[in-house]
């Protein structure tokens, strides 16, 4: 890899005021055009790590850099034009349409009083098309299903035209078709040299949607590397408990992790139908 990473975390420590450390020395680098999945047990600090990368939280110790520059040196507005963050859920009490939500992603490029130009509109509509949500443009955002809302949230982030896209659990609640569609979208974005990091609980999806996986546990990065190297039987059993089973999928050779392997089928007791 040449040149500095798009986003780099260097020995980052973080804890909420008066609270214990949530992250205890996390270091990782996210290169342009790469896709990193951040996985790990509940409470491992995944979403916190993503917020730190987005500049939403300030580390207690360590540094977050954007193309080699410490992000606290970057003006907030400038950072917003380069780094887009997508929360797990957007719940607004106000009746914004899908089109308006997508257009709001243009805010960092507009300034507070500007009206969106035809170009801004084209970018927002393009972002909606990118995630297959252009037909929803006139619907009320609040009336969409969870999966549709998530796609629109991603479109709104894409309208920011970021170099770095940070997604907090973008696949939770998505059906298989929507997961596949999202995987394709991320692949296209990576091909456009956008650096992508996503938090997910779905290890199997992580292994296929990303080229690297960071496994977080108790505020530390346990392992970071290619899915085959990181998602091993021994490591996952240690993090998630002994019932976890890791095998290799015959189609793609990538690891498949199961929460538990079913015990050998027994005949139903007591008959019945």
């Amino acid at each position, binding site marked *: 890899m040449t040149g500095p990473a798009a986003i780099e975390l260097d020995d980052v420590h973080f804890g909420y005021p008066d609270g214990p450390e949530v992250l205890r020395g996390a270091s990782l680098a996210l290169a342009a055009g790469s896709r990193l999945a951040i996985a790990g047990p509940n409470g491992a600090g995944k979403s916190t790590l993503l917020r730190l990368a987005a500049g939403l939280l300030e580390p207690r110790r360590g540094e977050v850099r954007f193309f080699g520059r410490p992000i606290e040196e970057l003006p907030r507005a400038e950072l917003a034009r380069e780094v887009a963050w997508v929360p797990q859920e957007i719940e607004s009490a106000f009746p914004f349409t899908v089109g308006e939500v997508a257009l709001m992603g243009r805010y960092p490029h507009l300034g507070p009083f500007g009206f969106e130009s035809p170009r801004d509109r084209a970018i927002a509509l393009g972002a909606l098309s990118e995630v297959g949500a252009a037909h929803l443009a006139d619907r*009320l955002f609040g009336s969409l299903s969870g999966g549709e809302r998530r796609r629109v949230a991603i479109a709104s982030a894409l309208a920011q035209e970021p170099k770095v896209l940070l997604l907090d659990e973008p696949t939770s609640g998505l059906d298989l078709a929507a997961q596949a569609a999202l995987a394709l979208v991320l692949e296209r974005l990576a091909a456009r040299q956008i650096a992508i990091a996503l938090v997910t609980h779905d290890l199997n999806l992580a292994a296929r949607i990303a080229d690297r996986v960071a496994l977080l546990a108790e505020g530390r990065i346990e392992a970071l590397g290619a899915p085959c190297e990181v998602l091993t039987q021994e490591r996952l059993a240690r993090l998630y408990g002994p019932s976890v089973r890791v095998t290799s999928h015959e189609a793609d050779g990538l690891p498949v992790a199961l929460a538990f392997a079913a015990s050998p089928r027994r005949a139903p007791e007591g008959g019945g139908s």
Partner: protein
Amino acid sequence: MRVLTPRKFACVVAVSAAALALALVLAPGFGSVDASLFRVLAGRAAADERTIVLSLRFPRAILAALAGGTLAACGTAMQGILANPLADPYTLGLASGASLAAVVAMKLGASSGLLTSLAAFAGALASAAAVWGLSRLGRRKRLTPEGLLLAGVTLTFVASAGVLLIQYVSEPFEIHHMIRWMMGGLGTVGYRTIAAMTPVLMPALVLIGLQAGRLNQIALSEELAESRGVDVRRVRLLVLAGTALGTGAAVAAAGPVGFVGLIVPHAMRFLVGPDHRLLVPSAFLWGGAFLVACDTVARTVTAPMDIPVGVFTALLGGPFFLWILATRRG
């Protein structure tokens, strides 16, 4: 796709301004004595009619427009910064603080309406400062909407208890005076009041209007707004300051007129959509027109008796608000 273009903005603002202008021009024509702004302007009116129109009804309509518009614009902005469509300019205790200060002034023998108004204005500002301080208790760096709301509700209760206490130890005629003030009314004002409140209102409204684009982001999602470069804390502080000044001035002049600041933002959101860049100016213009209309009805429906306009906005506003609650989408 619904998009706010400069053209759409200009059209909506022009139509809204025309509605307000129409209300202002027509309002002086209603009342127990036949009079008309047109006759006065054409120079065909008698001295009595000139006095009624130019010294009484027209300044009253202007004040109604300013107070109603300001309350509606402030209500819109409060709903935005709290990301809560049930907020209004008084949610953070401004009206109760103003009332307490006004009642204290009356009890201490404030001889003129001016002193009461000044006290009310000071009370509103003090309430805003107190809410800001209370919501930051516990060394929390983040200023959450819940913190602000809780502080506002607490302050409202404390100030209301203070008002009751003072009324309990007051003479009946004093109590009547106090209650009459708290109903809100535009009866005893002239151009001097307008001249006094305008220099406070206008900067407050400009301050709020300048936050409109940021209010959209906060109304969608506070954390997302921050990730897009909005300094949410600063916007909250600026809007709260603008609301304190604007609402304080409106309440000082017209008393704590209710419901305008709650209903008009809702109605406008139905009509022009939730984009604050259009919503704030429309709410100002239609809020003004609404209060001019309410006041005209209030002073004519039982003429020559003048029902306090605050009673009327609530009587009209209550059922309207219930209707909105019953038909709300999503």
